[in-house]
């Protein structure tokens, strides 16, 4: 069923009783050209682009829970492409461009909202860093502006300009950054992939990877053995668990990141704002909730829940940046498990096993990457060579000494 104002109109007059499923609930076939493990944003977008861009439709996405139950459904919905390094910047810019055309592309309104993102700076050296980053963006034709204190004040008069421990000196502004309705991304890709013949199979957990003569021939699952010609991992926080089934050695540590939403409030915050003297970031959803988060809980964790200290610290940063938040009430906290890589940047690559492909290491930046990740991963699977913008995101870059260390923190994942 194609979605449109007309379809809504028509359905309304039949009491909304004739809506059809957004996707099928297929039983697994015995063999697929490509199996993707992980029905999150990246797995589903990979399937979508495999079908749409590369004509590979005999594809299954296997999801152990319900689709979108991982980080695509538990993030702070921010999109941006304000990256410093050549290894990241063009990739995220491709992603942002794909976001910009997404609704038309998959006929689903994911509410891509380019509200603009401002990353605040609080010292001269931080301004220099952001200038370096912004100029790098401009080198690649990405929009970036360096705002001074007064420009920021005009845009966001409610920020703490007068009583700040770390004064706001300005901000790096990307107008095209913004937010997207996160669940809709998973659903839109799932529906788009399904319409093109992809089997999206929920509640199907992979329990083993079967190899013969050094290549993968299929996966053992809770729904039985399913054969495949190529196997693609997009399991985010569970990458290691799945990777171990094929004896992969991975530069990944799993960490937990919390996010929060306030009660519904009349719109007060237009932009996405990132605090430069901490980790806090915030935006306001179209429903009125303030959606925000900050840093990791810092220990290894596979539990989708967080600790109170991090909650408190997040609120401290929030109220410090925007004093007026003090009387707003926080409704809900949640947490996602992050596949933190050793340099803070992702991996989209082949593996030592010829027909096994890897997509991981998204740290806490995976949501904004969803379209490009799927696009580039599909490219890699279909063509067996990396997409140009993902050519640095290699698994062997650590051995070769070509880290993509955006934060400059070295091989300690929780510092990125």
């Amino acid at each position, binding site marked *: 069923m194609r*979605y*449109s*104002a007309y379809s*809504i109109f028509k359905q309304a007059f039949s*009491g909304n*009783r004739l*809506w*059809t499923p*957004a*996707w099928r609930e297929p039983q697994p076939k015995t063999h697929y050209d490509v199996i993707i493990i992980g029905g999150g944003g990246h797995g589903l977008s990979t399937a979508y682009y495999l079908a749409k861009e590369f004509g590979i439709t005999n594809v299954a996405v296997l999801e152990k829970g*319900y689709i979108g*139950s991982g980080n695509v*459904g538990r993030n702070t919905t921010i999109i941006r492409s304000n990256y410093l390094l050549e290894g990241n910047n063009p990739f995220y810019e491709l992603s942002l461009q794909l976001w910009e055309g997404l609704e038309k592309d998959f006929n689903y*309104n994911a*509410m891509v909202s380019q509200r603009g993102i401002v990353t605040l700076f609080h*010292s001269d*050296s931080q301004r*220099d860093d*952001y*200038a*370096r980053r912004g*100029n790098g963006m*401009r*080198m690649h034709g990405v929009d970036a*502006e360096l705002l001074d204190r007064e420009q920021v004040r005009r845009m966001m008069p*409610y920020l703490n300009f007068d*009583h*700040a*421990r770390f004064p706001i000196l300005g901000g790096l502004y990307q107008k095209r950054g913004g937010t997207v309705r996160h669940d809709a991304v998973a659903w839109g890709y799932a529906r788009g992939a399904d319409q093109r013949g992809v089997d999206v199979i929920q509640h199907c957990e992979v329990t083993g990877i079967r190899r013969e003569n050094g290549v993968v021939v299929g996966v053992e699952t809770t729904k039985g053995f399913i054969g495949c010609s190529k196997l693609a991992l997009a399991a985010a926080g569970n990458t290691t668990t799945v990777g171990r089934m094929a004896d992969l050695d991975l530069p990944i540590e799993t960490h937990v990141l919390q996010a929060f939403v306030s*009660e*519904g*409030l*009349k*719109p*007060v915050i237009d932009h996405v704002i990132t605090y430069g003297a901490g980790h806090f970031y915030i935006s306001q*959803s*179209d*429903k009125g909730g303030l959606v925000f988060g900050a840093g990791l809980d810092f220990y290894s964790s596979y*539990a989708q*829940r967080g*600790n*109170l200290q991090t*909650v*408190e610290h*997040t609120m*401290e940063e929030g*109220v*410090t940046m925007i*004093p*007026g*938040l*003090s*009387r707003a*009430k*926080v409704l*809900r*906290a949640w947490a996602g498990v992050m596949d933190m890589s050793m340099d803070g940047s992702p991996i989209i690559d082949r593996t030592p096993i010829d027909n096994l492909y890897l997509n991981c290491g998204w740290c806490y930046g995976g949501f904004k990457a969803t379209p490009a990740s799927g696009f580039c991963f599909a490219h890699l699977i279909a063509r067996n060579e990396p997409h140009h913008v993902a050519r640095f995101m290699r698994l062997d870059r650590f051995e070769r*000494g070509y880290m993509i260390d955006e934060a*400059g923190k*070295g091989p300690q994942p929780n510092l990125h």
Partner: protein
Amino acid sequence: MTSYRLDAGGAINRAQALTFTFDGQSFKGLDGDTVASALLANDQMLMARSFKYHRPRGVVTAGSSEPNALLTIGSGLRAEPNARATVTELYDGLVTTSQNRWPSLKTDIGAVNGLLSPFLGAGFYYKTFMWPASFWEKLYEPLIRRAAGLGKLVLQPDPDRYEKCWAHCDLLVIGAGPAGLMAALVAGRSGARVILADESFTLGGSLLSENVAIGETPASEFAKRTIEELASLPNVTLMPRTTVFGWYDDMVFGAVERVQKHVASPSPDLPMERLWRIVAKRAILASGAEERPLVFGGNDKPGVMTAGAVRSYLNRYGVAVGSRLAIFTNGGSGYRTAADLTARGIKVTAIIDARQQAPDLGPDGVRVIRNGAVVATKGRHRLESLIAERAGFQEVIDCDALAMSGGWSPIVHLMCQRGAKPIWSEEKQAFMAPNVGGAFVAAGGAHGADTIYACLRDGAAKAAAMMGELGFSAYQATLPEVEGEYDPSFAPVWYVPGAKDKAFVDFQNDVHVGDLGIAQREGFRHIEHTKRYTTSGMATDQGKLGNVNTAGIVAGMRGVSPAEIGTTTFRPFYTPVSFGALAGAARGEHAAPVRTSPLHGWAKKNGATFVESGLWYRSAWFAKEGEKTWRDSVDREVLNVRANAGLCDVSTLGKIEIFGAGAAEFLNRVYCNGFLKLPVGKARYGLMLREDGIVFDDGTTSRLSEQHYVMTTTTAYAAEVMAHLEFCAQTFWPELDVRFVFVTDEWAQMSLAGPKARIILSRIVEDDISNVAFSFLAVRTVTLRGGLKARLFRISFSGELAYELAVPAGYGEAVADAIMEAGREEAICAYGVEALNVLRIEKGFVTHNELDGRTTADDVGLGKMMAMQKADFIGKRLSTRFGLTAADRLQLVGLKPVEADKEIKAGAHLLKENAKPSLANDQGFVSSACFSPTLGGFIALAMLKSGRERTGEHIVVWDALRGAEVPAEVCQPVFFDPDNTRLHL
């Protein structure tokens, strides 16, 4: 008059009348009222509008799960949006306003959405607003955003204080109803440290609302006496107005105490709210049970509320919510409400009982419609009548309020916050608390106990068992008799089909049964999908009222048990908590502790402008009269240091004393350069790498005696370096005898730099500091004139003859003053970190601008320092990887603009001449830049691709962000005194 205050009864203080306003209109309430009970006492049933369809709404509950009656409480900077009227304590002068309506609560234009509701079903927005693309952000989204949210947040600084506290106890009891009170009593009498927390301002829970006798006294009296007894025990802490909102790992509970939310004029010495982190050995969840609304057409009409809420208003607040009530029930609760009402002379027009097995007559002869259902409600801003149906026969029932009871659900939220899922009980027809181990158990209503006696007994028993586990001899409580309890049984009724009007499951978000149907049809069948697609359970009550009904209804649609559907995930917060409470006092200027240098006072006296540097405040420059900009000051300071002398505060650099027989070997392993042969009385510049071969930090280390060193680190990395040293010593080489201690704070350290430094210093120091006696990199303990011992280091970060003098911190200001005095004739000046930065750029010394966590020693020209002949040092092995040694890496160079007065700014990128800007053409970036008064032009340090072989090349400094393109020449990164002759003067 349809809802009104009764002449007697209730736990309210009738002698204490309180005045308040609602939407500008003045009302009277009583001490002990909530805003909701006071409004009802004034016949104000209409309190709010719903989110999506703007339907008129009144209260559904009398507690914290209230989804409808959200108001803004207070005004001006103290306005709190979305406060639940049902739990907000009334105070004199309280100002409250309704929300999400325009122009008024009674006439709300937004209600037109209700007419469009067929088009606004679940998920409608995903399917439209896509054409044309540009309209989303220009038209559709702004329209949607205009409708967003409920209350208005005043985005202005909060005038009130907040704070945080820790508490420790043997037993935390959450909820002070019958189970909680008994549990606290047993534990308190056993001698345990007990905390009893309850969200209400009056302890007692359901005992305040239920009309039973306990031990021959009214329940509320029993509660009062028990609380008095608890208050007399020194080991028991009572915490009213305290909501336990979260259960975290290791039995840490988060709670928020509303210290002054109920106070008309808050005291400045008390916080508005206080966050508690309660560390408990054991905890009992005695949060009671939630009465489920029934789901039928028009169940959201103002005047329709739960039967328990009707009893609360009646018995606790002395308020009749209507003059003619109807009851719609599936069990005993409805009958109890009818009995309580009729006993107070309030008319009950009918009891509609959904069960086949129902009594013939209700209390006081009230008519019972057995096997009946409410199928519609009438009335605009409050209920005026309803239509009941039985066996296809419909009749109009006269009423102005309806008490509904759909059974009970234990409140298990807190126990499910750490991953455990509640378990469906067929017997109880409810989701029960999971077993989360013995340290935290549910008792009373939260455990499915459905009579007050059962609650008392369960609370006492659970506490007694825990006392035994904790080694206390458990107090044997005698349980009182309870008289007048009602039959708590009920038969499940998930919803009444066939209604014309919407039957709501989530009142606030306007999610009705039809939406659940759309979600099922479209494949959003998992309960989490159903929730996310319909937004059921996502409102401010987080599904407290509606989620179990949603599960039951979806189960019905799918023909399975609710057990198979399950619940969505419970997560903090149990009820919403303010940012303010969670942030506490660490905000604004107190967001982080402040560190001040021992020379802070000296710097201030000399006119310093300070700048934040991590937690420190450092002196940036010292403006003199007549200097218009910071540059004027900095230029003067630099020139004066080069020509005469200057004094700079360097106390903030990290200082670590290192002791032990293994210290030399240890240093030799943590620095990439050699340290074994450093003689006593000498300092050496050292470079530390990370294990991945990237530069970590730098500084000087001095050998004070054979087994005693003092290391300096950069200001920013002091803590990291210390932790790194400890890590290396404790986990890599525990066999080395080496000990560390931070001494940063002990010393006031100042750098005296400039050609006249020695003359000045010699007036202060008694020792011989001639170039021969005290050469470059010498270190010694010296005696200042007058006898004070100090440490003197001949090290320089300016390229000048320079000394760093360290004196005990308390003498810092006095010594700095003395040096300034001693140098007056030589025109000594104070200089700050800005001048220091210029001096070091002129000399090509690197800082963390260059050492940004991605650079190798070789990148910044220090490759030769790496003593690769050493068997081992941190970072040695991975530093030789191909990518870290490739010829096209960015390398440190100097840049001079072709026209000296053209400014180069840090953060600019580099392009070859005539090259188009693109990532492929990007040659590097400017890491540090300044105006050099010494050279009379701008200079910069930059990281340039293969930079060292490009000296003399002309490149373009490309700064699109700031609209500048400056041609520049690549040069050696040392602009001044390349032979370091001045260091050795």
